[in-house]
Structure formats: structure tokens, C-alpha cells
């Protein structure tokens, strides 16, 4: 569609579209569907490839994963040369002052930002775990209550109804009686769409052992409770949902009878073979004819007038693999929505030199540094079965200690030591080759050894909050460009003592838990790990949790934020920046459910702007 001028002849250009959305991930999908159903003409521009349009195409991704040598989160998915995505295999240990140039990110340090994301239709939610936790009420008031971080411009109560809507859209399985802790409230008759995913045998064993007991933390005794984790994973529908109307689980995109229940394929990250896990392709399937999606179109510029005011348009490059990229094309709309993810949104804005008066764009980048502690149970607990995590400890996520140290949540993970030691591959190799020393095992001795040891493996994963810090940021730099000549994200990142003190507290917890469980601690942190750090003389290795937030945070005033609580850009009234980049703090919940809830609040403002309802 080209520019259309006003037919009345006034010479004023009419926009090409009502709305242009950058990014066909989870946020883009929901916004496009909702706005399209309202009658809005929507164009979606996605940098990456189209994905999983048919069941057969999706199965090809599954096969790619099964045949991959390194089964990392992006391994099933096609990543084109002109729309690269960060890969965890590119994370390096950083040396003082020397940026790492490996892969897509440029890492200035001092510590590596260790998460990835995926530029594709469907976005990073293709490979997500699907944990769907609500934030606790005090998370929204971290500054007022604990003198740390910032307050959100909205409260839990204001988001509560949107959380319920998000739980419907994503199809969340949980029992409401397990989820009302630390001040989280629900309407009296609320139930989740599906009953909780059955806790694993490992969960049950740990719960039976530790529930109701305490651990010394922060000078007091913290009570322990194992909770089932709410997750966007198909389970038995709850007949009481929606006032007794019930709920129909949504199967796979293009194959509605597949994926109606989690089958225990144990590959949530990076791909659920049957689509029992929610992915945005299920929402793309619902999008109507008012929405046009163009994939392999990288938005290269946000056009503006050099000062606060409306955005004038976007430029994008339409590319085909193996061919030189085409010249940028221009598109205009009444409203522009950047939904490319927190780092891509910031990169685009900074690369376009969009006015950024208070210098917040790209800053306050946060992740959940993720530390793993692993051990061996005295008996077979059935490692490597089921979803990656079905339970955790949530009740330690808030308390007065947050004036001094980061809160954390603890995942119980069902897949043995795979993330920490590359089990069971390394177990097989070590047993066959005899650890380099004596004779290797073979035959029934080998089989028995593996059967005796591997099923007893288990681990805990800890997700710690980070405080928003101006120094943790995404920038652009013309020395570092991608194959389209567009700037790559240049990241500066560190983990402060507030978070490290949280790691120290978690150490007390895991050591106590291992002792109570009679487990043999095998945790090892090595100086050569890229995410190695120390606190109070003790070592920790963190990984990225894949939770990239904060780069265009929301607030109550343009001086302290980039967007308002509806995710509208303060300085550019026709521009919305949506997704996890808008979160002003990360707290301890995996951010996707909150990100989804915010979409429904944002829609109120979008509809006002568009004159709908």
C-alpha cells in the first residue's frame, strides 16, 4: 500500500495504516488480533521469518531440534543472516576493558548479559518455559516499602483483572488455592482455566520432607512451602472456570487435536513437540483479515522531527536470504507500536536517534541472574521426566529483608543436571571413557551405573531480582553493525551487591535443603565460567533466565520514565513501546504473565486513541 492523499484534495497525506506494529511475537500477536477485530487496519512488520504456519512446518522445527548438536534455546528455529538473534553459545568470559564481539551482542561488561531472545514470528515465546506467575503486591511498591528500586505507576489491584485475562489468553494451569500467598488476591469465585499440572514425583518428595519446616534467613526463621507453579501448559480443563462455562484447551496451531494435554516430552525449552505449551502461533491463528503481517522485514528507522512530538513514520528493509537487501521502504500510520522485545526496541530507538530528553531509553536493563545448585538424592526420584519445572518455593519472594538484599524465587527442576553439567551426555561419556583414568565401563556395568546415578540427579534454580541501574544499558555504536548495516546491541551489564547478597541468602537455603534431604551436594562454580562472581568470599555462577526487561520503563512522570502506565511514550504521543522493556522493576516473577496483562491495559488507551468504543 502506498501513501494515500486525502481524497477531498486538501493535500494532507492519509496514513497507510491505522496501526503499525513492529514485532510479531506474543505482544504483537495479541495487539494485532484485538485491534484487527475492532476493525482497525493493522500492519505487522517482523524482522525474522514466518514460523510454524502449518503443523508440518512446526514438525520440521522439532526435527531440527532433535538433530541439533547443541540443544540451546534457539536450536529449533531458523535465524536468518539479516535478522540475527543472540545465542547463548556466544557468551564469553569478559576481560577488563575488552568488549566481546562474539555473535550478535557486543558485551562491554564488566559481566556478560547472559540471556538470549528470538527474532521470529512467534518470538521468544516459541522457546519459553511458560511459567506464569503474578507479581506480589509489594513488588509494585519496592521504593516506598524497602527504599530500593522504584515504585510502579500502578498497583497489583489495578492489574488484577488483566492478570485474569492474561491467564485466559495464555491458557494457564493452576489451582487457585495454591496461589494466594504474599498478599496475592483473587476474586472469590476465581479459578484458573485448567487444573494444576501434576507436581512431579521429585516435587512431592521434597514437599513431603520440607513443607512447614523453617530455615534460618536474615536473622530469623523463614517458613518453607513447595508450591505448584502456574504455567501456560495444557492440563485438565476446570469445569468451574468462567462461572461454570468451563474452558476448552487450545491445541496446536494448524492441528487442533494435538497438544491438548502436556505429554511429558520434556523439551519445553526450546520447543514443545505437540504445542501443549502456549506459543504465539496459536494467537496468530486467530488473527483476522484486517491484519497484514510481513515477515523478513526489519524496521530500520523511526522517523521523527528531532524533538518531542509525533513519530512521522517507519522505514523497513524487506530482505530475502542470500540476496542483497532491498532499499528501505517507508510506511506511515496513525499509531506506532514497538513490540520487538526490550533490547530490540531500545536498539531501534537509539539507532534512530529518537529524542530521549531524560536519557532513559536503553537504560535500566535487567535480567534474573539464575544460579543453579545441584545434588544427588539417596534414591531414584525419576529425573528427566515431565516439564522442566512443576513446582518451586514462592513464599520467600517478599519480606523486610528486601531493604538489604534481593529477593529470589526457587525453581525445583525436573531435568537432572542437564543445565549444569550437560547430563546425561557427560555421564555417558565419563562412564565409557573412564574419566580419563582407569578403565571405562561397558555392557551391563555401564547400564547399571547410569541407572544407579542419573535418575537421582536434581537441582534448584534461583532467580534473583536486580535493581534498575542506569549503568546497565543497551547502546548503539557505529563500529558494530550487522549485515544490514544496522547497529547491533551494545550491552553494559553488572550484578550489584544487593543481588549478590540475595545469592548468599539462597546459599543458606540450598545447603540446608540438601542436608535435610540427605542429598549429596555436587554444586561447582568455576572461575572460567562466564557468569562467575563472588560475594563475601563465596563463589557463584549465574546464567541468564531469558528475562530481558526495563529498557523503556514506565513511570508516573517523563522525568523518571520513557512510557506512561499505558505504555505510551511520554515524548511521542503516537508511539507505544510495549513488552518487558516497560517494566520498571523485575522483582522475582518470570515477567511474561505481567507483560501479557499490561497488553490489556494498553488496549484501553489504544482504543481511546483510535476512537473505538
Amino acid at each position, binding site marked *: 500500500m502506498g501513501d494515500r492523499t486525502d481524497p477531498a484534495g486538501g493535500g494532507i497525506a492519509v496514513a497507510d495504516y491505522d496501526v503499525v506494529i513492529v514485532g510479531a511475537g506474543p505482544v504483537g500477536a495479541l495487539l494485532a488480533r484485538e485491534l484487527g477485530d475492532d476493525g482497525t487496519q493493522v500492519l505487522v512488520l517482523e524482522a525474522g521469518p514466518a514460523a510454524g504456519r502449518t503443523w*508440518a512446518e512446526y514438525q520440521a522445527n522439532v526435527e531440527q531440534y532433535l538433530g541439533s548438536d547443541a540443544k540451546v534455546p534457539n536450536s529449533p528455529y531458523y535465524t536468518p543472516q539479516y535478522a540475527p538473534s543472540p545465542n547463548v553459545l556466544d557468551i564469553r568470559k569478559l576481560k577488563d576493558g575488552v568488549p566481546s564481539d562474539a555473535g550478535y551482542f557486543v558485551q562491554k561488561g564488566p559481566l556478560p548479559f547472559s540471556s538470549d531472545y528470538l527474532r521470529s514470528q512467534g518470538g521468544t515465546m516459541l522457546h519459553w518455559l511458560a511459567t506464569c506467575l503474578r507479581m506480589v503486591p509489594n513488588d509494585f511498591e519496592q521504593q516506598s516499602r524497602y527504599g530500593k528500586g522504584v515504585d510502579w505507576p500502578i498497583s497489583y489491584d489495578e492489574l488484577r483483572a488483566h492478570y485474569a485475562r492474561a491467564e485466559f489468553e495464555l491458557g494457564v494451569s493452576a489451582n487457585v488455592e495454591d496461589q494466594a500467598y504474599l498478599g496475592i488476591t483473587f476474586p472469590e469465585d476465581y479459578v484458573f482455566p485448567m487444573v494444576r499440572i501434576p507436581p512431579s514425583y521429585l516435587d512431592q518428595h521434597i514437599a513431603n520432607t520440607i513443607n512447614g519446616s523453617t530455615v534460618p534467613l536474615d536473622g530469623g526463621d523463614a517458613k518453607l512451602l513447595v508450591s505448584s507453579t502456574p504455567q501456560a501448559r495444557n492440563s*485438565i*480443563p476446570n*469445569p468451574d472456570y468462567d462461572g461454570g462455562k468451563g474452558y*476448552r*484447551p487450545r491445541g496446536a496451531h494448524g492441528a*487442533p*487435536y*494435538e497438544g*491438548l*494435554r502436556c*505429554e511429558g516430552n520434556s523439551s519445553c525449552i526450546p520447543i514443545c513437540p505437540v504445542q501443549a505449551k502456549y506459543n504465539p502461533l496459536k494467537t496468530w491463528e486467530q488473527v483476522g483479515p484486517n491484519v497484514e503481517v510481513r515477515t523478513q522485514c526489519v524496521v530500520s528507522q523511526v522517523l521523527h522531527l528531532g524533538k518531542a512530538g509525533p513519530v512521522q513514520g517507519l522505514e523497513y528493509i524487506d530482505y530475502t536470504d542470500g540476496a542483497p537487501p532491498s532499499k528501505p521502504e517507508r510506511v506511515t500510520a496513525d499509531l506506532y507500536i514497538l513490540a520487538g522485545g526490550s533490547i530490540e526496541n531500545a536498539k531501534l530507538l537509539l539507532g534512530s536517534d529518537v529524542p530521549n530528553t531524560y536519557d532513559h531509553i536503553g537504560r535500566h536493563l535487567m535480567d534474573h541472574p539464575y544460579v543453579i545448585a545441584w545434588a544427588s538424592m539417596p534414591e531414584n526420584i525419576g529425573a528427566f521426566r515431565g516439564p522442566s519445572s512443576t513446582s518451586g518455593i514462592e513464599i520467600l519472594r517478599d519480606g523486610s529483608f528486601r531493604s538489604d538484599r534481593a529477593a529470589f524465587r526457587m525453581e525445583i527442576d525436573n531435568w537432572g543436571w542437564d543445565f549444569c553439567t550437560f547430563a546425561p551426555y557427560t555421564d555417558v561419556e565419563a562412564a565409557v571413557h573412564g574419566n580419563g583414568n582407569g578403565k571405562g565401563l561397558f555392557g551391563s556395568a555401564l547400564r547399571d551405573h547410569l541407572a544407579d546415578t542419573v535418575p537421582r540427579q536434581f537441582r534448584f534454580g534461583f532467580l534473583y531480582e536486580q535493581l534498575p541501574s542506569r549503568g546497565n544499558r543497551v547502546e548503539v555504536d557505529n563500529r558494530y553493525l550487522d549485515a544490514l548495516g544496522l547497529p547491533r546491541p551494545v550491552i553494559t551489564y553488572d550484578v550489584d551487591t544487593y543481588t549478590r547478597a540475595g545469592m548468599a541468602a539462597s546459599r543458606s537455603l540450598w545447603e540446608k535443603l540438601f542436608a535435610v534431604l540427605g542429598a549429596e551436594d555436587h554444586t561447582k562454580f568455576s572461575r572460567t565460567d562466564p557468569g562467575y562472581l563472588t560475594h563475601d568470599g563465596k563463589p557463584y555462577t549465574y546464567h541468564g533466565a531469558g528475562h530481558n526487561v526495563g529498557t523503556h520503563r514506565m513511570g508516573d512522570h517523563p522525568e523518571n520514565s520513557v512510557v506512561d502506565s499505558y505504555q505510551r511514550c511520554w515524548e511521542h504521543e503516537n508511539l507505544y513501546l510495549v513488552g518487558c522493556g516497560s517494566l520498571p522493576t523485575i522483582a522475582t516473577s518470570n515477567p511474561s504473565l505481567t507483560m501479557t496483562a499490561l497488553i490489556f491495559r494498553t488496549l484501553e488507551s489504544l482504543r481511546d486513541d483510535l476512537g473505538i468504543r
Partner: protein
Amino acid sequence: MTASTTTPLETLREHLQTAIEIEWSTIPPYLCALWSLADGPNEYVAGNVEEVAMEEMLHLTLACNLLNAIGGGPRLVPDPVTQLPQPPSYPTYLPHSDDAFLVNLLPFSSEALETFCLIERPAAPGAPPEPGRYRTIAQFYAAVRELLDELGPDIFTGPPERQVDQRYYYGSGGEATAIHDRPSADGALEVIVDQGEGIPGESIWDADENVFGEGGELAHYFVFDELYRGRRYTKDDTPSSGPTGDPILLDYGSVLPMRPNPKAEDYAEGTELRELTETCNATYSRMLVELDAAFNGEPSRLVVAVQTMLQLRGESLALMRIPLGDGSGLNAGPAFQWRAPTAT
């Protein structure tokens, strides 16, 4: 078929029990044909055979629901005293089919497809069913409808807790609906007959548009017919025109060459094949026990039954890949032999 002193309600219950036995007799042959395709590229074929197999499981579920709804109880495993009903031993005639044709456990082949077409054959328009001599499944269900008409609406006395619905039944085929009155019973019968044979004489498409609100799919008979003839049916084709669409690509070379009607007794005692076949028989038997429990007041047992079915699939596929090594070029396979569980 039944003594003349049997009441109409008892006759209906016996008919439904027979329906259940017919369904469970056809499912193992469909599964053997389906699983023999597992290692090959025949996605269109395998997808369609799988759809039919899953729909038969839905029909089994609906028949059990209907029997439970009228105060009966389905039997999927032999009573320890009477040893009835006996699960089928292959080759077998379908129950109450007047020995019309033998059904074998076969890998996917023209021969298998011929049998499947016979199983799913639509009723000739207007053909009256004769008691005890049902030539097609469609005729059989027509008799069921007549009995329901005769008995009226007050027979639905079964406890609702015995109904299996979409809480525990899921996956291909469609939705399992609870039955509690004549309209819901008719809905179930419509699914069974129309998914199976289509509307006799008129259309090759099933009535899914009416029942599930989705696009129509080929009725089972025509699924097998188009595979047998090697050409696809198009939207405008009819039973008399036959399929006029694209040729169907079938790579018979990759079909696992299971020897027909495997039995554990084919192998000497103490051999690995004997042991693996018996393990598979035990899994199959356990699945029937779990299904029997699920359809007799414990719907949640379907969760375990599905796990067992997946295990059965894995064990069956493994057998189908093992060459017999007897010069025949054929492989082993699942025997679907009932083994009564021993008391523990």
C-alpha cells in the same frame, strides 16, 4: 441373537455392549496399519489413518457413555468367572457380523485397506437390518436407534459420574460428550455413524460441520477408499464419481513389514522375541483393564490408560522393527493377545 424373553432395555444394552466389542476389535488392526508407517515419510497417509483410529476410540467412548447412561456397564475385559467377553484373537470375524469377512493384524497394505473399507462400509440406502445379522456397522446402529425410539426418554437412569467427557477424553476424533438424555444420545450416534460411513449414498464427507462446527472431513470409508485407489477425493466428488484428485504418494518400501497376526507362541520359550511379545501383551492387557475401570465409574483412570497406550505404542513399534531372521524378510509385531492379570 437373544432369547425372546429379554426386555427391550436389555436388548439395547446388549447391542451397545456388542458395539463396544466391535470397536475394540477394529482398533488393533488400525493401530498395526498406522504404526507400520511410523518410520517412513508417508505423512498424509499416516495422518489420515491416525485420524480414523482416534475417531474409533471416540466411538468406543461414546458407546460406553451411552451404555452407562441407560444404567448398564461396559465390559472391556473378560469376567473372571464366565471368561466373557473374550477380547478378539486375530484373525477374527467382527462380532455379530454373520462371519462376513476376516479381520487380520496387518501392516499398511492394499489388503489391509480392503478390509478397512469392508469394516466401514456404509449401509446400502434403505437396507433393513436383520436382528443378529448386521452386515455393516451402520445397520447395527440403525437398530440401536430403533430400540431407543421404542424405549422412550425415561431410560437414562445411569449415574452422571460414570460419564467420560472432555475432562479426561481428549485428542483426535472430536469431543466426548456426556450422555444423559435422548438428544445427547442422538448426538453421539450421529458422530459415530456419520464419521464412519458418511451420509449413505449422498456424500463422502462426514457431518462434522453439524456436529463440531468445523470443516467437513472425509468419512472413514472414503479415507480408506481414497488410499486404496491411490487418488484423493476432492470437495466435489461423490461416491459414484470416485476420487478425481491428485495421486497419493505411498512409499511402501518404508512400511515396517510385520508378519500378519503375530503371536507370542510363534517364538520358542526363553527367546527374546517371545519375552518382548509377552511384555507387549501384558501392556495391552493392562490397558484394557484400565479402560474398563475408566468406563465403569472411574473416568480419571483414563489418565493412566493413555500412558499405558503410549507405552504399548513404543513396545509395538520396537517389535515391528525386529527382523524375524527366518528368511521371510518379515518382522515381528504386537500380538494383541489378552493375558489375564495375575493376582499380586
